[in-house]
């Protein structure tokens, strides 16, 4: 079966990126024409991604339903594969398109969300300065993300990994005349770069000892990692354990895992559609995807030690993020922390997973949750964007009673909140239930944490829901109105997807060993999780549906704890302290002194010596012919003497 056409999934956004980026940002080309200055660039970008979306859907259909399971499990297909740089006979950088269940699923997720966000942005960004630039970056991001998910080898993945980092940087800093946006862009870039350093070192170690970059070779049971002896070890872990740990560091940076999460809330400075696409649905799941991609290694190497690290990182992240989300005022930040929390769920699910059959429930649940989360979280962000668009503020205290003005946004937002809270039959219920089931079977403590987090999630989501759409009735300077159709259509589509995607029998399609698995709902657990979700919702309803003094009293009662969560557990401050007091003052300053005085001094000394010496001998070139003749003469005599002396002629 030929999947060669999948290359067009990339080529279309590349073309639109080049077209918009090269032509759309030139005032000379677009300045005169009203048409060109207007929305045409947005429609070009949207059209290209629409094409990719259709192709991705066709690919998914062909892969899952036409190709099926020829020998009991789903095959790995290459849409394209060619050598990019060859180092030796065995080691080369390849580029290609690898199709397996998770990459096909991610293709669908990325193109779906990207297309809807493009469509939404044509309305949301209308009239903004840099409209064409925005769409160029958005297309660039789409290309990079697609390249990441279909990577055939870890190097290609790293390549596109950095490209998504760049596009994320460009889009967070889209309003580059706003200092906070610039600072946020830098923060995101530096923090993820720092994590990527670990990723890169991990790749180098892994590929050095395994002798390959290729995913298929790496994860195969008889491959260099799993087939051979464990190799040398260092501080209790094998080299592969260290490599995987470092690679996970890269994934944790990208997926905003504690303690590398600090960039994600600040990244909300970017335009809201960007937050929906990059910082909720696609890029931030790259870390989860990375772990899933190398899952057999994580599972086997060092008896799963790194996998336990993954699980606990996910669990702690989800708890901390959920606690912080309860008290934030900025709705986008609440959503950002909620994203972190859900990413923690996915990491945890991977961390408690096994490889085969029922053991692999966590892996399946993680991917399932990734899938459903992409839909409802994108919906939440786009809905929030729609609200922000209407009231021109991010802060919850500027909102209230909006359900009358924005019915479509209200309903779709409600669907998303129900989905994330795990209320059946919305999609989040199914995926979250499976994560809880997987955690329950592996680690009771993690299960308890996640169970609590499920309740907290329901609470804070409905807190902002009631805060925005119910709560205090207020009068607005401009009467809010429903967003235009290009913005509401994506909301409706995503809402429908948020309802329906939960009904997909996901285990049929995506499992750790690519063998279909027939899952069933663990009803006692499911009822328990529904119960905690409902409790969360009811508490939020009691607190926020009508204006009352309960929130203030609760805040007072929990005093210190309230302040701690509101100030995000002071993690930013800890970073600040470490960076300023320890790294800058303790390490960087002495090194800078050494550089300035010793290294520079040495170089300056060299320069000074050269200069002095050349000034000294500059007089030799006087331009005076007689002097030259004299030197020539003297040199000739000296040479003849030397020759005579050496040949012995002088002595007869």
């Amino acid at each position, binding site marked *: 079966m030929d999947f060669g056409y999948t290359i067009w999934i990339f080529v279309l956004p590349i073309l639109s990126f080049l077209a918009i980026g090269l032509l759309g940002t030139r005032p000379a080309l677009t300045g005169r024409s009203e048409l060109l200055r207007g929305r045409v660039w947005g429609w070009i970008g949207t059209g290209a991604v629409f094409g990719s979306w259709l192709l991705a859907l066709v690919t998914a259909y062909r892969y899952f339903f036409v190709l099926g399971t020829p020998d009991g499990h789903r095959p790995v297909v290459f849409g394209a594969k060619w050598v990019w740089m060859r180092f030796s006979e065995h080691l080369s950088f390849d580029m290609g398109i690898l199709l397996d269940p998770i990459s096909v699923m991610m293709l669908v997720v990325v193109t779906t969300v990207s297309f809807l966000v493009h469509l939404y942005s044509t309305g949301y960004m209308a009239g903004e300065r840099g409209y064409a630039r925005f769409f160029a970056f958005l297309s660039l991001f789409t290309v990079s993300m697609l390249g990441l998910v279909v990577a055939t080898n870890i190097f290609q993945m790293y390549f596109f990994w950095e490209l998504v980092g760049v596009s994320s940087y460009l889009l967070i800093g889209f309003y580059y005349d706003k200092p906070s946006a610039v600072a946020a862009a830098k923060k995101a870039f530096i923090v993820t770069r720092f994590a990527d350093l670990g990723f890169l070192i991990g790749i180098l170690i892994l590929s050095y000892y395994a002798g390959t970059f290729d995913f298929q070779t790496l994860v195969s049971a008889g491959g260099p990692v799993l087939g051979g002896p464990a190799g040398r070890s260092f501080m209790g872990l094998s080299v592969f354990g260290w490599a995987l740990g470092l690679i996970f560091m890269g994934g944790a940076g990208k997926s905003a895992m504690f303690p590398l999460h600090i960039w994600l809330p600040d990244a909300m400075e970017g335009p809201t559609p960007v937050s929906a696409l990059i910082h909720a649905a696609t890029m931030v799941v790259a870390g989860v995807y990375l772990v899933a991609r190398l899952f057999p290694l994580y599972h086997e190497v060092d008896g799963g030690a790194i996998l336990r690290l993954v699980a606990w990182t996910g669990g702690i992240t989800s708890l901390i993020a959920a606690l912080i989300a309860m008290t934030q005022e900025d709705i986008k930040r609440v959503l950002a922390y909620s994203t972190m929390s859900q990413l923690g769920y996915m990491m945890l699910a991977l961390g408690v997973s096994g490889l085969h059959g029922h053991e692999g429930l966590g892996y399946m649940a993680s991917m399932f949750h990734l899938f459903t989360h992409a839909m409802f979280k994108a919906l939440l962000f786009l809905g929030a964007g729609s609200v922000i668009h209407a009231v021109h503020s991010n802060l919850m205290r500027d909102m209230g009673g909006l359900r009358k003005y924005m019915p479509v946004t209200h309903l779709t937002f409600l669907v998303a909140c129900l989905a994330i809270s795990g209320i059946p039959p919305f999609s989040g219920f199914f995926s979250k239930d499976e994560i809880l089931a997987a955690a329950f079977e592996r680690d009771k403590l993690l299960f308890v944490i996640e169970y609590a987090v499920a309740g907290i999630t329901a609470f804070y989501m409905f807190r902002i829901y009631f805060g925005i759409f119910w709560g205090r009735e207020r009068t607005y300077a401009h009467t809010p109105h429903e967003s235009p159709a290009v913005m509401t259509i994506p909301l409706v589509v995503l809402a429908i997807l948020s309802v329906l995607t939960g009904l997909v029998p996901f285990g049929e399609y995506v499992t750790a060993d690519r063998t279909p698995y027939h899952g069933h709902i663990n009803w006692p657990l499911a009822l328990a999780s529904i119960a905690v979700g409902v409790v969360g919702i009811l508490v939020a309803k009691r607190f926020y549906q009508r204006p009352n003094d309960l929130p203030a009293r609760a805040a007072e009662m929990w005093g210190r704890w309230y302040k701690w969560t509101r100030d995000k557990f002071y993690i930013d401050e800890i970073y600040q302290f470490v960076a300023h007091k320890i790294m800058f003052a303790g390490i960087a300053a002495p090194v800078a002194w050494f550089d300035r005085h010793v290294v520079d001094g040495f170089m300056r000394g060299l320069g000074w010596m050269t200069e002095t010496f050349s000034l000294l001998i500059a007089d030799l070139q006087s*331009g005076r*012919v*007689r002097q030259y*003749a004299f030197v020539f*003469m003297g040199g000739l005599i000296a040479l003849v003497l030397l020759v005579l002396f050496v040949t012995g002629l002088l002595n007869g």
Partner: protein
Amino acid sequence: MIDGVGVYDIVAVATIVFFVGVFGFLTRKNLISLLISIELMLNAVVVNFVAFNKYLYPGRLDGYIFSLFVIAVAAAEVALAIALIIALYRLDNSIEADDMDSLQG
């Protein structure tokens, strides 16, 4: 062949004249004096040619003919050098060799 005079005597005289020319080249400042020194050196070399031809290779004419060529080339060289000296004199109103240092680095 000059009776009682060997090739060494002639070549020694030529050497002395040559080095006198070198000395002149090193110590004179005037361009024309330099030219005179060069002519001295050139003449000394021609004497060598002739003497070697006469004493060492009497059956051949190459040294003879070479000295003819050297004389011809020297004539050309002097003509050109004097033309240059006159042109420089017009330019600078000086023919001191040490003034001609515009090629200094």
